[in-house]
């Protein structure tokens, strides 16, 4: 009886154990070799768009200036990109790992990204930029 009970409990314990690993990637890769080629004052917006494609996000300070200057909220431009002075390229990576035991569970979730933010001047040339590639560590 005791042996049977022990076996049953052992089997139940084994069936209750498990682990999981989940990986999620969102966005497009930001090629590091291209980032190294960016030269403030030299690289143009056209080159940036050619190298990195369509950005994830952008801002339009010209519209903001109009609002502040005139105090009138104008309709948004249909075509935003020619007026954007900041472009954002981003790849986000998430990783979840965990163990599921009989009486104890542990999980660890990490989310990081590769991100390139490029500022342009009035001449459509790169003014400055910031870059990080922390998503790589989660591969």
């Amino acid at each position, binding site marked *: *009886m*005791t042996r049977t*009970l022990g076996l049953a*409990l052992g089997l*139940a314990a084994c069936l*209750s154990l498990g682990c999981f690993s989940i990986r999620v990637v969102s966005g497009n890769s930001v090629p590091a070799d291209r980032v190294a080629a960016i030269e*403030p004052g030299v690289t143009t917006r056209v080159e940036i768009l050619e190298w990195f494609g369509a950005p994830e996000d952008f*801002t339009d*300070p010209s519209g*903001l200036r109009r609002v*502040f200057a005139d105090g009138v909220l104008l309709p948004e431009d249909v075509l935003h990109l020619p007026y954007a002075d*900041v472009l*954002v390229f981003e790849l986000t990576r998430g990783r979840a790992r965990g163990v599921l035991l*009989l*009486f*104890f*569970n*542990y*999980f*660890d*979730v*990490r*989310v*990081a*990204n590769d*991100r*390139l*933010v490029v*500022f342009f001047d009035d001449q459509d040339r790169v*003014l*400055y*930029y*910031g*870059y*990080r590639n*922390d998503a790589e560590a989660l591969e």
Partner: protein
Amino acid sequence: MQKRWSSLALLLCCSLIASGCTIGRWYVGSPVRDDPATLIAVGETRKADVLAHFGPPDRILRQREGDIFLYRYEQRNSSELDISEPIRGFTLFRWDKVQDKSDRLMVFFDPAGIVSAFGYRHGRAELEPL
């Protein structure tokens, strides 16, 4: 007598199976690379320097008086202990603790792109182990 002990052991095991402890860790973003106090000088440091030292911000707020960069690295520690009655799943005892802390750096620029002020809080240092 032996049968009674076995039944008791089975009941105890069932009770324990219905109990559980869960520990979770969440990390979102990237750590602030350097100590802002040593690298940022109000009235001197330029936007390009901030971007070079700390990388791209997590958020850019655009204002007439100049941009604001926000850097944030979040960590959440969660611990949970749950003891339930095994037949109906009725919770006998539950203990939860969630700590949500973040390292935050906020840098204010004037219209010329020079740092006009900044604030930094190493919030993750306040996290308790459990």
